[in-house]
C-alpha cells in the first residue's frame, strides 16, 4: 500500500477506439484501435518514457490520459495536490477543469503550438488567467520569472512567436506548462522537431526543471537515445498495447520482448568500430483497424510459435519491476545494446 501512495498517475485498461464510418448513412464499419488496453503507473518525481514507432498510439495515449480525448474504456487515477486519489473518468467538467492546472502538456510541434497572434506574455500567462492564479498586476512578474527559469530573456515578453527559433519556442511552451505549478507534465515528443544540438539543451532544461520544481514526467518519444537520457523507467508500445515496462537500463540491457530487442538494435551506435547488428523486422506495421489475432506482434516476430497467433499475452511481472507481454518472457535469449 505504501507503494500505491507514491504513484502520481495510474492507468488501467485504457482504451481509445475511433469509429470508422462508411457510406452516407455513416454506419460504423470498424474501429481504429489507437489505444487498446494499456496499464501503467508513474511515481512521483519519476520520468516514465513511453516509446514506440509512429502510429503506435503513444500520442493518443497521452491525450487520453488527460481526458483531452475521452477514453472508450479504462480507468485513470491521479493524486491531487490535496493528496487525494481521484479517478478521472468519473469527474465532471468543473472538477476536470480544476485539475487541469496540475496536469499539463508540452506539445510536439513548436511551430503550431503557439498562437501566432499572441505575444509571449499572453501565451505564457494564459494558464494563470484561466485558473485565476495571479492578479493582473502580478502577471508580468510571474511571466518574467517563468521565462527566466526556462532560459529566455524576460524582455522577449512582448515579442511574437514567429520571431523565435524552434528551440526557443519549445522553451516558451515549457514555460506555459510550468505556469500553473503542475505536478505532472506529459511531454509529447517535445524534442522531435528540433535539431540534435538543440534537443540536448531542451532535454537538460527539462531535467533541471524536474529537480527544481519536483515534477513528474511522462515522456513520449520515438527516439530511443533521447528517452534513455531522461527516463527512469520506460514503457514500450506497439500497435496500441504496451509490450514491455521496466527500469530504463534494465530494458536497454536486458530487453525481454522481441519488439523491444528490434527497436533497440536500430538505435545508431556512435562508436565507429562497433558494427551495428540491426534486426530487420519483416513486413510492415499492420493497420490498427485490423490488428492480428493473438499477440499483435506475432506476424513480424522471429521467435513466433503457434500459441502466439492464438492467445494474447498479458503483461507479466518477471521480477525486478520488469513487465513483459510475451508468451516466452524470460526464456528467450535476446540480444541487447549496452
Amino acid at each position, binding site marked *: 500500500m505504501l507503494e500505491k501512495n507514491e504513484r502520481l498517475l495510474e492507468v488501467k485498461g485504457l482504451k481509445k477506439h475511433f469509429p470508422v464510418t462508411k457510406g452516407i448513412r455513416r454506419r460504423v464499419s470498424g474501429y481504429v484501435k489507437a489505444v487498446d488496453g494499456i496499464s501503467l503507473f508513474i511515481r512521483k518525481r519519476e520520468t516514465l518514457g513511453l516509446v514506440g514507432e509512429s502510429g503506435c498510439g503513444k500520442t493518443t495515449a497521452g491525450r487520453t490520459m*488527460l481526458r*483531452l480525448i475521452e477514453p472508450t474504456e479504462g480507468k485513470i487515477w491521479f493524486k491531487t495536490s490535496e493528496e487525494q486519489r481521484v479517478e478521472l473518468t468519473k469527474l465532471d467538467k468543473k472538477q*476536470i*477543469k*480544476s485539475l*487541469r*492546472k496540475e496536469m*499539463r*502538456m508540452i*506539445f*510536439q*510541434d513548436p*511551430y*503550431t*503550438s*503557439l*498562437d*501566432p*497572434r*499572441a*505575444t509571449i506574455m499572453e501565451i505564457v500567462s*494564459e*494558464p494563470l488567467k*484561466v*485558473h485565476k492564479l495571479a492578479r493582473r498586476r502580478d502577471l508580468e512578474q510571474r511571466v518574467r520569472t517563468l521565462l527566466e527559469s526556462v532560459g529566455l530573456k*524576460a*524582455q*522577449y*515578453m*512582448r*515579442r*511574437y512567436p*514567429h*520571431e*523565435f*527559433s524552434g528551440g526557443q519556442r519549445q522553451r516558451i*511552451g515549457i514555460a*506555459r506548462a510550468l505556469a*500553473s505549478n503542475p505536478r505532472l507534465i506529459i511531454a509529447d515528443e517535445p524534442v522531435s522537431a528540433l535539431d540534435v544540438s538543440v534537443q540536448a539543451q531542451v532535454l537538460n532544461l527539462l531535467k533541471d526543471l524536474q529537480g527544481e520544481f519536483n515534477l513528474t514526467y511522462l515522456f513520449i518519444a520515438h527516439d530511443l537515445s533521447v528517452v534513455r537520457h531522461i527516463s527512469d523507467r520506460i514503457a514500450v508500445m506497439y500497435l496500441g498495447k504496451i509490450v514491455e515496462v521496466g527500469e530504463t537500463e534494465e530494458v536497454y540491457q536486458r530487453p525481454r520482448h522481441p519488439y523491444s530487442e528490434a527497436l533497440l538494435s536500430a538505435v545508431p551506435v556512435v562508436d565507429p568500430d562497433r558494427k551495428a547488428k540491426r534486426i530487420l523486422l519483416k513486413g510492415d506495421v499492420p493497420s490498427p483497424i485490423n490488428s492480428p489475432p493473438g499477440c499483435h506482434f506475432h506476424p513480424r516476430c522471429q521467435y513466433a510459435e503457434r500459441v502466439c497467433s492464438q492467445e494474447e499475452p498479458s503483461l507479466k511481472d518477471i521480477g525486478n519491476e520488469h513487465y513483459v507481454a510475451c508468451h516466452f518472457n524470460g526464456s528467450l535469449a535476446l540480444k541487447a545494446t549496452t
Partner: protein
Amino acid sequence: MKLRKGTNVIEAEKGKGYLQLVWRKFKRSKTAIGGGIAIVIISILSFFSPFFSPYDYLDYQPRQSFRPPQRIHFFDHKGKFHWRPFIYNLKLEMDPETYSRIYEEDTSWRFPIRFLVKGWEYNLFGISSNLHFFGVEEGGTIHLFGTDIYGRDLLGRIFLGGRVSLSIALFGAIVTVIIGSIMGAVSGYFSGRVDMVIQRAIEIIQSFPQLPLWMALSAALPKTWSSLDIFVAMIVIFSLLNWPLLAREVRGKVLSYREQDFIMAIKEMGGSDARIIFKHLLPNCLSHIMVVLTLSIPELILMESVLSFLGLGIQPPMVSWGVLLQRAQNIQTLGQHPWITLPGFFIIITVLGFNFLGDGLRDAADPYSVRRT
C-alpha cells in the same frame, strides 16, 4: 520613462506585431492612402456638418429656390488679384430674348469669405455653438453648391446627408461583422448539427437576388414609423442580409485553425470554448474581418442611396444622399438645375475611397504569409 524600483532598466522590447506589419505594407499603396484620406475628409465634414454649413439646412427660403452654385473668385472683374477669396452675389435677371430667368453675378460688391464666423445656432453632441467654418457678412450669400427647390443650401444638406449615409453604412457593417464572425466561428468550431443548420441558413439567404430582397424588406417597413425607427430598421435589414459572406470566410479559417496544436493547448490548460473562439480563433481571422468590414461599407452606402432614391428606406425630413438625389429623378429639373446631382459625386468619392482602402488592406493583410522563420 519612469524608473520604478526594481524594474529592469532595459524596457521590454515591443515586438513587430500584426498591426505594425499590416501598416507597413499598407503605406506602400498610394491609392489606398488616397482613399483613406478622402474618407477621413468626408467623414469630418459630415460629422461636424453644422460647423461646415454656413446655412441652416432647415431654413425654408422659397425666394432662393434653385440658385446655381456661386463661384469663388480670386480675381475680380477688373482683373485685380485679392488674397482673400471672395464671392459675388447673384441677382436675378431676365434674358431679353428668351425671357428665361438667369442668374448673373452682381459685381458691384465683393463679399470676402471669412473664416470662423458666427452664424446660426446649432447643437453638436450637447455643445451649443454658433461658430462656422466659413461665411460672408450680412447681405451676401454663399451657396457653393447652389440651393434646392426650397432654397436650402445644398452644401450643408450634403454634409448632413453624409452623416446618415455614412452612419448607416458603418453601423450596418459593424453589426454584419459581429454577427458574421460569430456565426462563422461557431459553425466552424462546433461542427456537426450546429454547423449544418447555420450553413443551410447561409445558403438560403444567399440564394435570394439581392436588390429585390432589399427592396421588398424596405418596402415592408410601415411608413408611420419615425425616422429614427426606419434608420435602425435599415441597419438591421442590411446586416441580416450581409452576414453570410463573412460567416463563410471565417468558418473556413476556423476549420483550418481548429486542429492546430495551439488550440489543443488552450483546451489542455482548461480554457473554455468561448475563450478559444474569442481570444484565439477570431483574432486569427482578423485580416478577413477587416477587409470585409471596409468593403461592406461602400456596398451599404450604395444600397441605402438606391433605396432612398426610390422612395423606400430613409424618408424626408431625414436627409441622406439618396434622399437628396430624389429631386434628380425629374429630367426637367435635372436639365435646368444640374447641381442637384452633386450628392452623387460625394457617393462616388466615398465608395471609391472605401474600395481603394479595402483593396489596400486586403493586400496588406496576412503579412505572416510572406514571412517564414
